[in-house]
């Protein structure tokens, strides 16, 4: 079986992290985002993953060669010379996707959840039509495009963009499974799958909705990245509690790479991920943060709702909060206060940032 992952371009929404690392390789809960998806696909029987990328990165290509070996699958990169939207990449990869007559998965690379690929395949085979999209429930449907479908069977009736009166609280979760015949609907030009393809499929009774159980988050920007991390760790708590740290100094769900080192009198958590080789010195307080590989939190610092970039250093008695994001190799001098700072890579910060802003 095959899967196509819509990776897209520069990942500008996740800057400054994506200035150093291609978005699919940014670690989410200590594993590159893309691998969360690829590994789940492999488990569901996928043996060929196509990455639809709009900008080629040697780093990504090299990493995919390694993962091919590790997972024993084929990973292709399908490169769009011009942006093709969310449907065009399927046309571009047509030959790769229909060399057998099996259904294939399509997913948005920013999505994190307990991937239900087995169930999708089952559901899709059961209804026997061209496409299945996964939907997830939201609290404020008026912010999104919602999907209206039959409660029995899941046949989609229509899509409503930002509904002003309540029609549904289910939105497109960015995960699909299609029969190869669906590809005839798509031409090689910039096309939106949500706006131009799905409504037609729904009208023809070819599109079904499967409801997602459990959490779901689009982690394309830092604020949602942190929210998604909290959800993912909670899911770990339920399904694989052994992977979380417990004991004195840990509060709630905390995920720590075995190579990270933590000093004395720290208080870590809830909702903290510490990456490989991270050093947390004595007396540090961290909650709701992702600390990426090789970063150092110096003594008595206090962090809440931050992403600390690779090999960055947070000085002693620094306070960082309110979705402060440090790019790669940033140095925050001792005793500073960063409130919602977005710091580009390789910067040395010498003054406090009292109000949210970008530090070039």
């Amino acid at each position: 079986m095959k899967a196509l992952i819509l990776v897209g371009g520069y990942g500008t929404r996740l800057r400054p992290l994506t200035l150093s690392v291609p978005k699919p390789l940014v670690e989410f809960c200590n594993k590159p985002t893309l691998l969360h998806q690829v590994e789940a696909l492999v488990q569901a029987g996928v043996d060929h993953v196509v990455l639809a990328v709009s900008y080629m990165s040697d780093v990504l290509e090299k990493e995919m060669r390694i993962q091919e070996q590790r997972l024993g699958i084929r990973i292709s990169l399908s490169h769009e010379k011009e942006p093709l939207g969310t449907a065009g990449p399927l046309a571009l990869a047509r030959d790769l996707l229909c060399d057998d007559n099996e259904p294939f998965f399509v997913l948005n690379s920013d999505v994190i959840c307990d991937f239900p690929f087995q169930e999708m395949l089952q559901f899709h085979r059961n209804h026997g039509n061209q496409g299945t999209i996964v939907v997830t429930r939201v609290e404020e449907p008026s912010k999104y495009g919602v999907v209206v479908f039959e409660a029995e069977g899941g046949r989609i009736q229509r899509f409503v963009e930002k509904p002003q009166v309540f029609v549904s609280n289910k939105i497109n979760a960015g995960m699909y499974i299609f029969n190869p015949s669906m590809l005839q609907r798509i031409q090689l030009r910039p096309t939106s799958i949500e706006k131009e393809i799905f409504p037609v499929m729904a009208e023809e009774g070819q599109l079904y909705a499967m409801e997602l159980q459990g959490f779901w988050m689009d982690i394309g920007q830092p604020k949602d990245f942190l929210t998604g991390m909290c959800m993912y760790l909670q899911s770990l708590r339920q399904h694989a509690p052994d992977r979380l740290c417990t004991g004195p100094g840990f509060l709630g769900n905390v995920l720590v790479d075995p190579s990270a080192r933590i000093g004395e009198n720290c208080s870590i958590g809830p909702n903290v991920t510490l990456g490989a080789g991270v050093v947390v010195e004595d007396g540090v307080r961290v909650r709701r943060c992702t600390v990426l590989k090789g970063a150092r939190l110096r003594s008595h610092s206090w962090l809440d709702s931050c992403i600390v970039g690779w090999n960055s250093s947070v000085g002693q008695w620094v306070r960082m909060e309110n979705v402060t994001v440090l790019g790669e190799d940033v140095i925050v001098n001792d005793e500073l206060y960063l409130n919602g700072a977005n710091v580009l890579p390789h910067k040395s910060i010498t003054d406090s940032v009292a109000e949210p802003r970008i530090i070039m």
Partner: protein
Amino acid sequence: MLKAVILIGGPQKGTRFRPLSFEVPKPLFPVAGVPMLQHHIEACAKVPNMKEILLIGFYQPNEELTRFLFTSQQEFKITIRYLQEYAALGTGGGLYHFRDQILSGGPQAFFVMNADVCSEFPLPEMLAFHKEHGDPSSLVILGTTANRKQSLNYGCIVENEETNEVLHYVEKPSTFVSDIINCGIYLFTPDIFQHIAGVFQKNQQDILLEEPANGWHRAAAIRLEQDIFTALAGQGKLYVYKTLSFWSQIKSAGSAIYASRLYLNRYHITHPERLACNQEGGPKISGTVYIHPTANIDPSAVLGPNVSIGTGVTIGAGVRVRESIILHGATLQDHCCVLNCIVGWDSTIGKWARVEGTPSDPNPNDPYAKIDSETLFRDSKLTPSITILGCNVTIPSEVIILNSIVLPHKDLNRSFKNQIIL
């Protein structure tokens, strides 16, 4: 023989020092670990032939003041008395009212100084200058140089550059007059009372011409600056001794931190025993720090520069304090960070809390810059200034209190920024 008079004002003054002046008379607020006034008294007590120090003000006699007078007399072996005005008589009026007390024993000269200044107090230099200049009955003002803009906030002195005679004196002019400003420290001879008497009698005549309100005649305040110096300028009676040593007003609470720094640096010469040093088993000291011996400080704390720790203060593990005054009985819990703050008596700061202010130091690139007499609000927004916690304030763990003033006896339950918390 010599005497000294320190004008300490009264409770209606010093409102810019709130909320700290609610708890203690401003002249007794600790600067570099000792009451503001003690720096004046130490300087006076060192002058040979100094027989008596008189404090003039309109505070009701109170326990703190009485205790301070008692311990200072013991420590400095000199008579110190408090003379209470029945009303705010002005800087000149208070002196005049108590002229008999000042003149008793026949001093040849006496110093007069405002309590709310911090200075190296070059008193012997002023005496020497007095001997060299003018006739023996002349008066000396201590002057220093300000920048042109800030000079407008002070009494401005125009001098004869050869003789140092004061040719012109104007208090807080609206346009630039001179960059030599009045430091609020004077050397007077008994002749000053003739000049004040002239003003006093004129005032009395003016008052008699008025209808008494409710059967009382008002007391006319006599101000040394506007009423006396302005008149004496250009008469060959008034001289200015210009100093290059440090000097600052202490009007706002923010200036107390600046004044503390000046005095702490001065302690290297005057009181090295008051400066904390790095010792086995003690906290890490960075720069000038005063720690009262009764304070209990964890060895992993890092203090300084410019930190003063009062009696019975408790400082936990991994605490950082810089540019701050911690008043007696306060507790700073583990890992908290206190920068540019005054932490009030018996206040508590929780673990990992950050209490931070914005320093109001003079521009360091201008040698003549003074601390700005900042206004609390600018464009209806609170001006970022040092953070002040009043007495018995509780700051919970892990919050940030930034550029805020917390009035006494408040238990906060969240973070605050740029606010006055009533």
